[in-house]
């Protein structure tokens, strides 16, 4: 794999992440990767496939099985001038490293009055809908959004994944990069010259009736909902928040000032979540523009259930349309395209 400056390729999202890691390793010899099974195996999702062969076991390191140590030693490497990009194998395995992330990574810059920078990237394949067992489908992003000093970002398309990860690696702030694992195999064009910022949301589809803000794996679901609604003459403005912390409230407020209605969707449970924060912020700033109570489409406030329950648990096209209907004060307007029958395949 070689980076060609102007090349536009069609890549799966997982491969686009691999391309970003490749290009970052090539561009800066202070960048290195560390994680469980990322070398010889190429990661359990093959995201780092081929990178150890290209860059060697010193820069693509299979670590011992210890998440606290992966994060904690990355901190030491950052002190030493390296730019660690570490992988946590699955969302549910980040907690042994939680203390190092929230008590150390997040606070070091503040603690040292800016003298120590933590240019770490912590890659986390996250989210559900992959039919797996416990701890393999979680959305723990709000724990980190709640912690000052961490940037928390996601990506919904191969281009976003590439561009966001490059920006994350280039950033001198620590970044948690949540990768929507159910979308690893979705394809899209990737221009490897584009690097984006880590602060802004983006309006994917303009619309005048309802603002629908989401991120990560639910972006695709939201776009499908917008399409289904368009068939009925309802215009949904779809916003990909991209950055969960800091949250780009400005973009959402500007949209709500036009539409007067807000729906927020994500895979994480509802309580003390990204939607809690976003809805509160919009109410604070655009109360007068709201023509209806904001709606939220999230997982329920239970642990992630066995996979047989996923289709009820996760936001679906139908649940989003249901919320849009409520925001618009409509009843039972669900379109045929959004029937339960197609949810399994379209979420």
């Amino acid at each position, binding site marked *: 794999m070689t980076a060609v400056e102007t090349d536009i390729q069609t890549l799966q999202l997982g491969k686009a992440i691999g391309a970003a890691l490749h290009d970052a390793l090539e561009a800066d010899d202070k960048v290195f990767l560390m994680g*469980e*099974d990322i*070398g*010889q*195996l*190429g990661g*359990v999702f093959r995201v780092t496939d081929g990178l150890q062969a290209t860059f060697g*076991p*010193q820069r693509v*390191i*299979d*670590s*011992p*099985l*210890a*998440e*606290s*140590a992966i994060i904690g030693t990355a901190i030491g490497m950052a002190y030493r001038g390296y730019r660690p990009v570490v992988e946590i194998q699955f969302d*549910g*395995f980040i*907690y*042994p490293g939680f203390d190092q992330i929230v008590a150390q990574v997040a606070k070091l810059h503040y603690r040292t009055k800016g003298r120590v920078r933590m240019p770490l990237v912590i890659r986390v394949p996250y989210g559900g809908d992959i*039919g*797996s*067992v*416990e*701890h393999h489908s979680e959305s723990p992003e709000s724990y980190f959004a709640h912690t000052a000093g961490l940037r928390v970002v996601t990506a919904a398309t191969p281009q976003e994944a590439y561009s966001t990860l490059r920006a994350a690696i280039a950033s001198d702030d620590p970044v948690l990069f949540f990768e929507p694992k159910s979308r690893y195999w979705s394809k899209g064009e990737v221009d490897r010259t584009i690097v984006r910022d880590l602060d802004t949301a983006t309006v994917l589809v303009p619309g005048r009736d309802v603002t629908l803000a989401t991120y990560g794996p639910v972006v695709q679901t939201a776009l499908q909902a917008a399409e289904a609604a368009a068939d009925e003459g309802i215009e949904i403005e779809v916003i990909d928040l991209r950055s969960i912390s800091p949250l780009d409230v400005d973009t959402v407020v500007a949209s709500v000032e036009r539409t007067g209605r807000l729906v927020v969707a994500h895979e994480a449970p*509802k*309580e003390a979540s990204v939607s809690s924060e976003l809805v509160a912020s919009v109410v604070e700033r655009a109360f007068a523009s709201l023509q209806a109570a904001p709606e939220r489409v999230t997982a*329920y*406030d*239970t*642990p992630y*259930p*066995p*996979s*047989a*329950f996923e*289709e*009820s*648990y996760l936001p679906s096209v*139908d*649940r989003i349309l*249901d919320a849009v209907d409520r925001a618009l004060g409509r009843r*039972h307007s*669900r379109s*045929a395209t959004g*029937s*339960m*029958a197609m949810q399994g395949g379209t979420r």
Partner: protein
Amino acid sequence: MSLIENRPLTVPAPNPALAAGLDEPLSVLHPDGSRHANELLDPHLGDVDEHALTDLYVDLSILRRIDAEAFALTRQGELLLWPPAQGQEAAQIGSGRALRDTDFVFGSYREHGLAYLRGVDQGEAMRVWKGVQQSGWDPMEHHLATPQIIIGAQSLHATGYAMGARMDGSDDVAVAYFGDGATSEGDVNEAMVFASAFQAPVIFVCQNNQYAISEPVAVQSGFPLALRPTGFGIPALRVDGNDVLAVLAATRIAVERARSGGGPTFIEAMTYRMGPHTSTDDPKRYRSEDEVASWREKDPIVRLERHLEQTGAPIARIREEAKIRCDAVAKELRAAVTAVSVPDHRTLFSNVYTTPTKRLERQLAEHDAFVASIEAAPGGHGDHA
């Protein structure tokens, strides 16, 4: 500078005086089935007669069959996932047979042998791997925690259980099962700190199956894992994990020590994961066929079969008896798995707390209303499956 090349050399060696079997794992059975003397183990095998050997053989065979059947069910789409135990039967059965029913076992996700020994309903156990339940039996009924996926976490639970047993003045012991990879986790090391500090009656059974997914054990440690506990003051026994008698004897030693107030013991059972990490893994990416073949020579079941044969046991009859039992277990398991129906989705709200909260009752009502609206919608239907 290479981090990798230097790693084993920079690790200080813990105290070998506390570990047995470092040069050569403790064993009593050669791979060819012949029995040899072992000073440490032999005194704990005095009661093992032909009848006991036959029972062990049947246990090993049934475990292998349960494992093979479950694996096949993943290929047929009946199960989502299966972490195979093939090759590790002796490590699980040998250790499990050294316990009494009131000893509490805390395993990882691969100890299907312990579930079998504790009389767990196999069909019920499979519901976890079918993705319809998070656990497949009552831990309190079987004195067996249900599968635990966070690597190493259960080692602390076992230690705490043992601390409780000790506080109660009981001679129950607790056992933690984990893998070679798990020994790198903080939890396992902290479990050893507590076990040692409180002299808890806990036994750490580390099945060193040579891999943590793709990572060979050398990634975790440049010296035998059995040396790790010795740094915490915990004695260790490094045994041939494919020799069911050696594992049985070693575990008996550990259990006797724990029951009599002698504190924790660490057992490193040297074995091999013959299959993939799970049914979704591709081991060809990280290990050679030659390596796998070399371990096939040391197969725990073949070894015991040879031994039975050499001792003059009626091996043809024993094999036949084992086959009949295996077939019955497999048939029952398959029938149970294929009969599992899709659960009522409303139960996803159950058991979050001991009593339902208003918040969850409200969310359940919202779920119900949504499902009802879908059923009422033109072209909609209520089929969740």
